[in-house]
């Protein structure tokens, strides 16, 4: 069964200039590196990147920065990547920092049909600037709004042809959240499995969220 498994060329054709790209991964781990290569090969530029971080200089997600494909970044931390830091300081990349837990909730809302989430994280700091404060039962919260992307890049341990996904260890990280929050969700899976082979209860991301899986 072929299902949602697509050739490299079909994946490369998904990328266009100016898109918002959401990418799974944390500190160079659990990153969909084969899809990042497809994105680089597409030549798409002026991208907005939503990811927890930008990896290291010219590694994993950092390759998109190194090859100057990214104009804007939404992330929780970019300190590991000296190239990202230098481009931000030079004014060549615009950055929005979001506390990591709030960023995850914004992805979850974007993928769950929700209008936002209320959190105490960032209250009394510059993170509340320009955001709505909402009082519930006498307590103040910051309203964090949903984030969505044109294309999501997901790394999974296993994928079946219907797009059902399972992950491994801390490589799961942001991937199940990213998988839900885009118009087109692309998957880079270590192992391509048969239908029913992953196991109903072992599946973390149901295939309904997935559009295409990169063929091996």
């Amino acid at each position, binding site marked *: 069964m072929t299902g949602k498994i697509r050739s490299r060329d079909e994946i490369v054709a998904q990328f266009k200039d100016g898109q918002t790209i959401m990418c799974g991964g944390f*500190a160079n781990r659990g990153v969909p590196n084969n899809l990042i290569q497809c994105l680089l090969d597409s030549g798409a530029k002026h991208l907005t990147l939503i990811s927890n971080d930008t990896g290291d200089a010219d590694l994993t997600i950092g390759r998109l920065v190194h090859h100057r494909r990214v104009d804007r970044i939404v992330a*929780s*931390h970019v*300190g590991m990547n000296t190239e990202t830091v230098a481009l931000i300081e030079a004014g060549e990349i615009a950055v929005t920092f979001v506390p990591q837990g*709030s960023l995850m909730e914004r992805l979850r809302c974007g993928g769950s049909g929700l209008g936002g989430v209320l959190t105490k994280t960032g209250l009394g*700091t510059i*993170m509340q600037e320009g955001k709505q404060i909402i009082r519930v039962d006498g307590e103040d919260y910051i309203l964090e709004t949903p984030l969505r992307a044109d294309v999501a890049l997901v790394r999974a341990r296993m994928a079946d042809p219907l797009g059902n996904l399972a992950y491994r260890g801390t490589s799961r990280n942001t991937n199940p959240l990213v998988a839900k929050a885009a118009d087109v969700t692309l998957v880079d899976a270590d192992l391509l499995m048969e239908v029913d082979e992953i196991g109903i209860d072992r599946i973390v991301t149901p295939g309904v969220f997935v559009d295409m899986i990169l063929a091996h």
Partner: protein
Amino acid sequence: MDIRNRIAKRVAAYFKSGDVVNLGIGMPSLCPAYSDPGVMFHTENGLIGVGPLSTGLRQVESFTNASGQQFLPLSGASAFDSAESFAIVRSGRLAATVLGALQVAENGDLANWARPGKMVGMGGAMDLVTGAPKVIIAMELCARGGEKKILKACTFPLTGRACVDHIVTEQGVIDVTARGLVLTDIVDGVTPQDIARQIEPELIVADDLRIMEA
């Protein structure tokens, strides 16, 4: 014991068996060596049960900590996505979080993510100080150039307001309390006056001041 391990060992004395604790990068990551074996460690990318760093063939990409270092998961470990990870953080399930600091204020305000004009992001620090019932700062008492780090008010961008409980330094331990900063532990050979000179706010000395292992 060097200064970093001295601080880590004193921090670990706050943990008890059954606690789930989040450790920041750098000095806090030395704490497990001194902790009760019943303490479990949380990494914010999404796992409880972080074990020792792995080497050679035991290194697996799929078990990495907040610094991206590979570790061995312990028996009983559980993995989850990063939203679940911060649900654990915000809902108060952690016993404590241990972080470094650039500045701490008398009222427990913490600045540890940005210097003016130099911002690389806060990662999970703002969520951790908001959700963890106990926030422990592991840091040297003064900055490299000798500048004071414990101040009446922070001048750097804040990570959180009134969130710090304990400040563990190489010279002693200071608690943030409703009546002010209280010196609870001191290293032999250092006097409370020595520490008071190196901080901006007034320092109260605890009645039962303890000697901190050097």
